[in-house]
């Protein structure tokens, strides 16, 4: 119950609202512990980020990019980039986010769990800011798909 309350508080926070107002992200759907957030990249394309927020606050979020229609994890739903980008975003085979505040990343690197890096004042916005930087900072290696036509 407390976890759900904390998630609601963070969704209602000024920090989350700022990201919406700036055009970095928007909440598409919230069902139980699952959030679907549209993330906007610098060139305007958007990606649908699915976040598993079970035991929010106590456990890290788990993020995966999914297809807008089917909500399935498919290759075409994932942002792509160079080798720098690929250190965080595993978009080729395994489809997970390798980061200290992500549950799947911690499964790959159990030594990260003890650091409890996900325990931030606003866990949700911390995660979304991480993804925002991946899609907006040139140094993070995101490569927009080629435009057609």
């Amino acid at each position, binding site marked *: 119950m407390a976890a759900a309350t904390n998630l609601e508080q963070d969704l209602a926070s000024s920090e989350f609202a700022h990201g919406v107002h700036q055009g970095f992200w928007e909440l598409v759907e919230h069902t139980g512990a699952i959030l679907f957030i549209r993330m906007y990249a610098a060139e305007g394309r958007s990606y649908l980020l699915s976040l598993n927020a079970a035991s929010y606050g106590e456990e890290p979020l788990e993020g995966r990019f999914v297809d807008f229609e089917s909500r399935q994890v498919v290759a075409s739903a994932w942002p792509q980039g160079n080798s720098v980008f690929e*250190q965080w975003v595993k978009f080729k085979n395994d489809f997970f986010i390798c*980061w200290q505040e992500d549950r799947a990343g911690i499964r790959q690197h159990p030594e990260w769990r003890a650091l409890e890096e996900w325990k931030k004042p606003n866990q949700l916005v911390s995660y979304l800011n991480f993804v925002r930087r991946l899609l907006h*900072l040139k*140094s993070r290696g995101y490569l927009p798909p080629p435009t057609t036509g």
Partner: protein
Amino acid sequence: MKVHVKVEEEEGVLQTLEYELLPTDSINALAAKLAADLDEPVADILADLGANGSVVTADMPALDVLHACASLRRVCIELHFETETITHRFSQKAKWERVHLFGCKKFAVADDACANLELHEGTIDGPVLNEQKRIGPANGCRTIWLVKPGPEPNGGRH
């Protein structure tokens, strides 16, 4: 023919620039003079000179676009980077990306380091700005920080 170009902020007119134009002078030629006088890119000046939402192309006769006067709307930005500060007026129509690139140039930030910086509003820890959005109007001078975000550990290659 004399053309007067007013450079304005929300609080009023900052300066009025005067140029003598021939009927054959293009808007690009005027924009180049303005760009030199205001230390801004020609493209930003051309975007500002577009009237009533119409598109201004560089080869249009300046007098057809402006008639006798024009105004450039500016907003004051006080940009901070580490221990340095610079104040500059940008076009309200410019994107925040312009402020980022201006800062890297003025503070002598290397290209690879520049690509790793982001703009924060108000304080070094303030909310991040989307650099694809336009600056827009403001009363007074906006305080903006050019900030290097912290490192993001990852697992490397799997």
